[in-house]
Structures are given as structure tokens and as C-alpha cells.
């Protein structure tokens, strides 16, 4: 079969199709509205939780400093009392055994060596993680629960941080070896391509105490050396998008 015959066959099959367009559009829009509503609810819950953190921080300020901010307190207090009870408890989205597969589904490229592991699943100190090789280079993701973090506190040197609705994002790149918690060593000089960097990491710490960490390496092994000229297989921006994906957390039923 040549290219022309293939085109002809696909065209003939396509011409036989007669979809119910109105029904498909109505169904697609309905699914979309449901997703948008869930996303909006998650943001509301995140804002409420961030407000709690802020209020707690405010309450811990020394007396004089707090007195100077009385107006702010008066404005934010009613929000706390009305929004908090509506926050839906959440849990990790993927089953531990599916971590690698879910990670692979989010990546575009040649995905191989899909792996998943976990420790003390369900316990407060436990975590679950997955890894894949993306175009031959390693990418990992790790989910864990911690105490809610102060915004942009206790970050590796050189890391960038941003507080957004629903989480605290941080990201950094290193020229040294890395582990599941991200790369170590001296901060890599920020250039356009991150050429020569060993790994990049991004984290998303949510107000309700979940931490999603994603790391992309420049090679297939975490401790591989001699990757001069290579860059981590995902950019910091792509990693940030990865850790913000809603697939990692879901509302408890």
C-alpha cells in the first residue's frame, strides 16, 4: 500500500461517518463545565488555606507590629470563618503502583522504563514516587505530605519561588548529583539552555500540606557523569507545569 492508497482508504472511511454533532458537543461541554467547576472549588479552598497561614503568621507578630495592621485583620477575618468549613479533604490522585504510568501520560516524547515505588504508604511520613525515561533521560515525581510550609521558606540556595493560588511553587537547577528530593551542589548558572546542568527540580507545596516534587535529569541515570553539552530533559517551566497538574491530588469522596 502506498501513500496515495492510504489517503484514499482513510478518506473513504471518513466519508462513511455521520456523528451526532449536537450530542457530542453537549457532552463535551458538560464534562468541561464539571472540570472547570472542580478547578474553581480547589482554588477557593487553596485561597482559604493560604488566608489561614497568613492569619496565623499575623497572629504571631509582636504586639506593636500587629497593632499597626488592625485594618488588615478586620478585613480578612470574616473570610476565614466562612470559607474554611467548605474545604474538601484531598488525597493523592494516583495509586502508588500507577505513579510511573501517570507520569508518563503527562509527558510528550518517547517514554520508557516506567517505574513506581513508595514507602510507608498512608502514613504521615510516607511518600509515593514514579519515574520514567523520557527520550532516554530520567524524570521522577514524588508525592508526600508535610506540615504546611511558610511561603518560600527553607529553599535550596538559588532557588526561585512564587506563591500562586493553590500552592507555593519553587524551582532550581544544579550541576551536581540529585536524589528524589532534587539535585544538589552549587546552583547552576542560569543561561538560556541550562547546558551542562545535571538536573532541574520544581516543587508545589499546597496549603493543605501536600508536596509534589518533579525532577528532570540530563541523562538516564541520576549519578551519570559526562553529560557535557546536554541539558535536563524538561525545562524548569515544564517541571513547574508538571507539579501543578491536577492529576496528583484529588478530592476525597
Amino acid at each position, binding site marked *: *500500500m502506498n501513500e496515495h492508497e492510504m489517503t484514499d*482508504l482513510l478518506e473513504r472511511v471518513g466519508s462513511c461517518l455521520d456523528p451526532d454533532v449536537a450530542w457530542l458537543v453537549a457532552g463535551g461541554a458538560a464534562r468541561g463545565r464539571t472540570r472547570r467547576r472542580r478547578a474553581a472549588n480547589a482554588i477557593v479552598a487553596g485561597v482559604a488555606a493560604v488566608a489561614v497561614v497568613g492569619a496565623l503568621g499575623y497572629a504571631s507578630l509582636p504586639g506593636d507590629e500587629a497593632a499597626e495592621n488592625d485594618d488588615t485583620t478586620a478585613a480578612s477575618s470574616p473570610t476565614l470563618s466562612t470559607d474554611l468549613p467548605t474545604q474538601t479533604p484531598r488525597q493523592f490522585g494516583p495509586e502508588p503502583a500507577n505513579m510511573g504510568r501517570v507520569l508518563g501520560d503527562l509527558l510528550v516524547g518517547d517514554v520508557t522504563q516506567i517505574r513506581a515505588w513508595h514507602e510507608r504508604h498512608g502514613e504521615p511520613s510516607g511518600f509515593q514516587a514514579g519515574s520514567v525515561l523520557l527520550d532516554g533521560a530520567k524524570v521522577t515525581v514524588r508525592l508526600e505530605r508535610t506540615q504546611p510550609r511558610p511561603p518560600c521558606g527553607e529553599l535550596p540556595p538559588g532557588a526561585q519561588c512564587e506563591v500562586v493560588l493553590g500552592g507555593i511553587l519553587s524551582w532550581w537547577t544544579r550541576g551536581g548529583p540529585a536524589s528524589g528530593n532534587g539535585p544538589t551542589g552549587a546552583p547552576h548558572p542560569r543561561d538560556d539552555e541550562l547546558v551542562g546542568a545535571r538536573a532541574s527540580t520544581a516543587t508545589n507545596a499546597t496549603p493543605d500540606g501536600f508536596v509534589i516534587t518533579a525532577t528532570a535529569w540530563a541523562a538516564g541515570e541520576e549519578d551519570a557523569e559526562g553529560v557535557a553539552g546536554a541539558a535536563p530533559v524538561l525545562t524548569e517551566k515544564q517541571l513547574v507545569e508538571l507539579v501543578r497538574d491536577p492529576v496528583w491530588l484529588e478530592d476525597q469522596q
Partner: protein
Amino acid sequence: MAKDREFEEFAIARTPQLYRSAYLLCGDRHGAEDLVQETLAKVYVKWGWRIDNPAAYAQTTLVRTFLSQRRRRSSHELPYADLPDSASVDPVAAADLRLELQEVLDGLAPLDRAVLVLRYSEDLSVAEVARRLGVTPGAVKNRSMRALERARERATR
């Protein structure tokens, strides 16, 4: 509400083409319908954001959703079961086409099928197919050549 109306107009205009691609990828009506609705839902959520080319965005979303769904499924199901019933289609001709399509595409990897649909049904260039699938142009050429070769072998049996 204006955005909803815009989305609806876009979706009504694009759904026949999306459905055609979905059917060629999935090989059955129910899978194609689900894939189209899932795609429209994803586009709906992003509607109103800056999307340079909504038609291309929807098509890429559809193919990537298909590939993602196939990765999740561990079973190696055999697609291409039924052509949809339609009063306007000769059932005998439809059955013949179904068999022909089954012979040609049966057993191809999802990514190979996606390459064939984008190249020979959507008539996209090698470079554009590569960009949408996130693979190299060389991989697109190799996969389409391999798929055509396999189709030729099957057709001559």
C-alpha cells in the same frame, strides 16, 4: 456566556473532523465518541486562554489524549469493530471498508496509527506531525514507512 457561545460554535464546526480522526484512531464508534467528548472538555476548560490556533490545538489534544488513554490500558485490545450505523451509508460497502481498514491498521502501535491519521487523513507535513506528537521528523518518517509496509504486507496476503 459569550465564551460558551463561542466555544459551542467552534465545537459544532470542528466536531465532524475531530470525530473522523477519533474514529480512525480508536476504530470503534463508542471509543471515538468518548475521545471527542474528552477532547472537547479539555478545550472547553482552556477556552478563553490565549490559543493561537484552536483547531490545531483541539486536534493535537485529541491525538495526545488518545495516546495517553492507550498507555493507561494494559490490555492489547483489537480495535476496528464496527462502523457506525448510518442511513446514508451502504451497509455492505461499510462492512467492506471496515474489513479493509482492519486489515491495514490492525495491530499497529497507537503512535503509528496517530502518525498515519495525521499524515494521510489530516494531510499534515512530516514536520508538523513531529511537532504535534513531540517526536523527531525522522521518527515520523520511519513510523509511517513501517506502517505502510506492514499495510502492504497485509494487503497482499
